[in-house]
């Protein structure tokens, strides 16, 4: 049983404690609370570095200190506080950094509302448990044999066929009917690889539709996209050893993952609004009358400073898009402004929650929109790597990981 230590403030009074425990139970984990004394809470300024007005945050910090002093108490940590609480946001981030710096225990940080359900937490918890449970599998660096991977995403379904550490076939289709799209993507990948389905030794599946698709095609590996994508990213970017940061701006949500030796150490997943996702760029391309594959090249010729755009909310983002075009702004400036705005949302909302260490690897279909990695480079002041097959990252990660199961 994987023990996840819960360091939190407000969950019991937001009515979501049972949801947290249900999510943990679903992924085969148990929530634990490290034992601390009253003196530990009263001395938290000396041990952790600060004490605050809210006692439950002091208790959370005291528990963090206890875990660092005795790492055997927990296999993973979740730090959770109320959304919109400034006091808690500061402490949540500091607890995450503290655990990260002083132990090897993976940490997940999350801010909740009363609407947070077990389902919202499930993928995050699953990833947390995977990093603990399948450390050996995640350490795998080479793909062996003939395997396939399917990434059943919210917008598109991707598939690859790999043989002896090389991608030999790819397939990419829009997600309509989940099962049909998965079959079509796999078929396309098999076709370009020139191999028959029967010859594939094992299939790994990830993405939103993973459970449905995985069951249907009898997949050997069904895994959430956080561990799979980070594995695929470091494999393709040749950064399997040492630190790396993976940024995946998806069609519906975004992921920022801090990776060490190919294994996620901390991550965030979310996005306030589709205004911070690939969906907004799709909309921009449509408005500009260019194909989504052309948007990036157009953006590279533009300057975002010439257009006032904020896509914090997709409705307001669209409004500024329409306004800027009505004001006669140049299409290339508008394209770059859209890329910059999406990058800015990810920078503000997600990259603040993980350790950004080089190399920074951008993956997913959106990374091919050249303006987006460029905007991210400008924001982070570091070079951003977009590996070959970046749009197939989940499928590559799944094909790689599933080959590890074949030997066992």
């Amino acid at each position, binding site marked *: 049983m994987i*023990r996840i230590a819960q360091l939190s403030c407000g969950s*019991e009074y937001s009515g979501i404690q049972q949801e947290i425990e249900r999510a943990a139970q679903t992924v085969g984990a*148990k*929530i*634990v*609370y*490290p*034992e*601390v004394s*009253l003196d530990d*809470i009263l001395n938290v300024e000396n041990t952790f570095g600060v004490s605050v007005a809210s*006692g*439950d945050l002091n*208790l959370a910090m005291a*528990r963090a200190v206890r875990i660092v002093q005795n790492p055997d108490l927990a296999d993973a940590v979740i730090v959770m506080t109320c959304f919109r609480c400034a006091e808690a946001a500061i402490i949540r981030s500091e607890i995450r950094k503290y655990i990260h710096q002083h132990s090897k225990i993976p940490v997940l940080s999350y801010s909740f509302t009363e609407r947070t359900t077990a389902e919202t937490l499930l993928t995050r918890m699953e990833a947390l448990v995977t990093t603990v449970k399948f450390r050996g599998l995640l350490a795998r660096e080479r793909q062996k044999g003939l395997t396939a991977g399917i990434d059943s995403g919210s917008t598109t379904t991707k598939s690859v066929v790999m043989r002896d550490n090389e991608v030999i076939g790819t397939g990419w289709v829009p997600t309509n009917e989940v099962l049909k799209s998965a079959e079509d993507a796999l078929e396309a990948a098999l076709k370009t690889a020139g191999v028959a389905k029967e010859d594939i030794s094992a299939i790994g599946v990830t993405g939103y539709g993973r459970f449905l698709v995985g069951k249907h095609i009898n997949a050997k590996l069904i895994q959430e996209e956080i561990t799979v994508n980070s594995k695929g990213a470091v494999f393709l970017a040749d950064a399997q050893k040492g630190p790396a940061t993976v940024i995946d701006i998806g069609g519906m949500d975004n992921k920022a993952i801090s990776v060490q030796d190919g294994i996620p150490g901390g991550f965030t997943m979310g996005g306030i609004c589709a205004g911070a996702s690939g969906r907004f760029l799709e909309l921009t391309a449509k408005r500009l009358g260019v194909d989504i594959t052309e948007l990036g090249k157009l953006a590279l010729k533009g300057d975002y400073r010439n257009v006032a755009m904020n896509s914090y909310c997709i409705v307001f983002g669209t409004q500024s898009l329409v306004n800027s075009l009505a004001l006669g702004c140049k299409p290339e400036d508008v394209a770059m402004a859209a890329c910059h705005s999406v990058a800015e949302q990810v920078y503000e909302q997600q990259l603040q929650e993980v350790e950004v260490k080089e190399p920074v690897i951008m993956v997913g279909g959106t990374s091919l929109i050249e303006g987006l990695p460029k905007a991210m480079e400008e924001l982070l002041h570091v070079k951003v790597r977009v590996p070959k097959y970046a749009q197939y990252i989940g499928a590559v990660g799944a094909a790689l990981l599933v080959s590890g199961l074949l030997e066992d």
Partner: protein
Amino acid sequence: MLVTKYVITSSESNILPSDIAMKIYGSKYDVTVKETCFGVVINGEEDAINALIKEIRALDPAGIFIKDRGFPPGDPRRCRGRRGGGARPGFYMIEAESKMLPMITRAMASEGEVLAIAEKKKPLAIKRLEEIIHEDLS
């Protein structure tokens, strides 16, 4: 309505949690009792609990304290044995207040005689601080 109360003894009281438990076992009330490190937790119908509390208080009027509790005793939602260890957050408040109980007990037993309270220290007058700085640094 079923209610749950903590019965907490001051550390200087001669009454032990087991004495309170024995008193309850020997009483006519249909009340469940659970001993803890700082006292007992009792659960029963409100009327029975209120009547019983009067009898329990009589064991040591100034040394026994009563507190309401939301959850029934041993409730799996709150029981640390079933919930991955760690005291429930409210426990620390009971612990902190328990440490003050001997003082409160003595105060209640003193029959209203109020002692002189030393005045709280005030910050040094800025003028005096200025003088000290001049004296020490000159």
